[in-house]
């Protein structure tokens, strides 16, 4: 993927760029809003990572200008006041997702990946499959090979979320937002507990593990 990172702090910027490059992306890094705007409008990027506070042209202004000009490239907004207010303001200005600083690289990478895939609609079928794992969304039956697996409702929702995004990393906060519908970090290990319970039912009794932990980032279902 070709990505644009607009970040005024050189250290953070180069770390992000390096990390994304290591994942195989092509990354352009600019350090101020003016250059960011020029680069962004010239197009060709799949996702833009945009810092909210920038010299010369502020991140929100850049975003509004971009959207005003009809550029629809998905934007991940990075902000310091990582709380609801900025989030709303950012989303209103046209951001597609939002990440509070300081963040872990894994979170950023997972969210960039999620944004890039966004235009392709989620898999719409009623039966989700990964290797020999099958999930029927209508009968709510989960099977692996010939074995039927009993899941509690929340475990089912978690597995469904991961299966629909097969191969893509889902971070703890992303799962809290989508599966538990909680927009803040309650500081509990509810995600970890549910993942390990899900593993005990879906992976443990079988030879191949399908739920993978991505260190420093989150979880994904092996494609």
């Amino acid at each position, binding site marked *: 993927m070709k990505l644009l990172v607009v970040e005024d702090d050189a250290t953070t910027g180069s770390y992000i760029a390096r990390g994304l490059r290591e994942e195989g992306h092509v990354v352009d890094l600019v350090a101020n809003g003016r250059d960011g705007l020029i680069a962004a409008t010239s197009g060709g990027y799949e996702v833009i990572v945009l810092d909210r506070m920038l010299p010369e042209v502020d991140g929100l202004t850049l975003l509004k200008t971009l959207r005003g000009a009809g550029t629809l490239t998905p934007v991940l907004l990075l902000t310091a*006041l990582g709380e609801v207010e900025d989030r709303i303001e950012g989303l209103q200005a046209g951001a597609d997702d939002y990440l509070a600083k300081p*963040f872990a690289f894994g979170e950023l990478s997972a969210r960039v990946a999620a944004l890039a895939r966004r235009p392709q609609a989620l898999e719409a079928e009623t039966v989700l499959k990964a290797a020999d794992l099958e999930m029927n969304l209508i009968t709510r039956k989960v099977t692996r090979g010939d074995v039927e697996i009993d899941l509690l409702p929340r475990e089912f929702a978690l597995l469904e979320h991961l299966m629909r995004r097969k191969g893509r990393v889902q971070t703890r906060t992303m799962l*809290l937002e989508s599966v538990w519908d909680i927009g*803040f970090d309650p500081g509990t290990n509810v995600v970890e507990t549910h993942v390990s319970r899900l593993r005990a039912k879906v992976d443990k009794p079988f030879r191949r593990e399908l739920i993978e932990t991505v260190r420093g980032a989150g979880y994904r279902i092996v494609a």
Partner: protein
Amino acid sequence: MTRLRHIWRSMPLRLAILLVALFATVSLLSLAASYAVTQSSFEETIRADLQQDLAGFRAAPSARAVAQLVEAESRAADPGRLILSYVARDGRIYGNGAIAQDEGGFHIFSLNPDRAEFEGEYLSLTNPLYGGVITIARSRAEIVALRGVFVNILLISLLPTVLIALSGGLILARRSKRHVEVVGAALDKMTSGDLGARVQIGPRWSDDLVRIGGKLNQMAAAQEAQMGALRDVTSDIAHDLRTPLQRVALYVQDLSDRVADDPESAVLASKVQGEVDGMTHVFHALLQLAQVETGSPKARFETVDLTQVCRKVVEVFEDSAVASGHDLSLDLVAEPLALQGDRALLGQMVSNLIENALRHTPSGTEITVSLRGQEGAVVLQVADTGPGIPADERGKVLQRLYRLDRSRQTPGHGLGLSLVQAVAGLHGAQLSLQNNAPGLRVDVRFPTKVG
């Protein structure tokens, strides 16, 4: 009733009543004085007339002549105005009425009311004459009529004045009450966090109210500017801190990736990572607290079902509660309890309360989250059966960063309850800490009626 009392306590009405009372007293006194003067001058005239009459009869040469004169004059006189009576030495009575008095001199009397021709009061003069007694009486009707005249003057001039002054005062009082209410409403808005509220000064306001309103607006503007400056400072600090924090977070991550093969270094790196996470957490909590306290999240309030919020948050804590041996339960009523608020902040409030209870009570403690709809309020309670908080420390735990002595060893940054309090304040809710006997019960009382 209370409205009347309010109006009575207003300045313009009191002034009006005071002035009216003063005016009425002075008018009454001067009227009374003129009445007295007029009456005594009338009385004097009648006395002089009586004395003149008497002198005429005295001029008669004998008792017989007096009797004849009395008879003659009383025939011509109207008994309603003048009564003449001469009781001769032999007991015979002459004149148009027998009104002899025992003593000489002036008397005021009324005759038997049955006799219409002698109606009303008379002033009489009695004097001995030629062995008999002569009595002349003149009607005091004019003097009596005078009283009526004065009562009329009183009714016609004083009463309307009093009525007009009183209703004028009442109107002024109500108007000034309205103006004061405008000032009060603006103050209420300012107190509830809307620093943009201003007193709308009307064109017909009195000078002193205009001055007060102007001063209030100045004060609000100054405070708004200060709040703005504070917000700028907060966001500057946030900007200055986030960059180094972000760098540290990335460095640490890089470092732990590099030392992943060396177990000792890996442990150290993960400890550093943990501390960075902790710092980040406090940093976010402080920023969030600052934001909530400015009241700005009010702008995006929506209808939130608190029942659902509680259910979700309790579910997220269930596993932790089981792991730490706590008995976490939910006590809800069937119907949804909705209020105007910020969903995420309300969720965090419930979350912080549960987290506090889990953290500060021993294993085996029961924690109950309950929600009740009451008259005009929704009450959220998080109660535990733990050690509780001594009454004298309950106020302190709401202070920012305050921690009970016994809690110093447990993790946490002491901002949890501050945020709960700030979120409660934002929603106009009352937060109170109660004795759950045993344990602590936190009550958050949300008013559901706007007003």
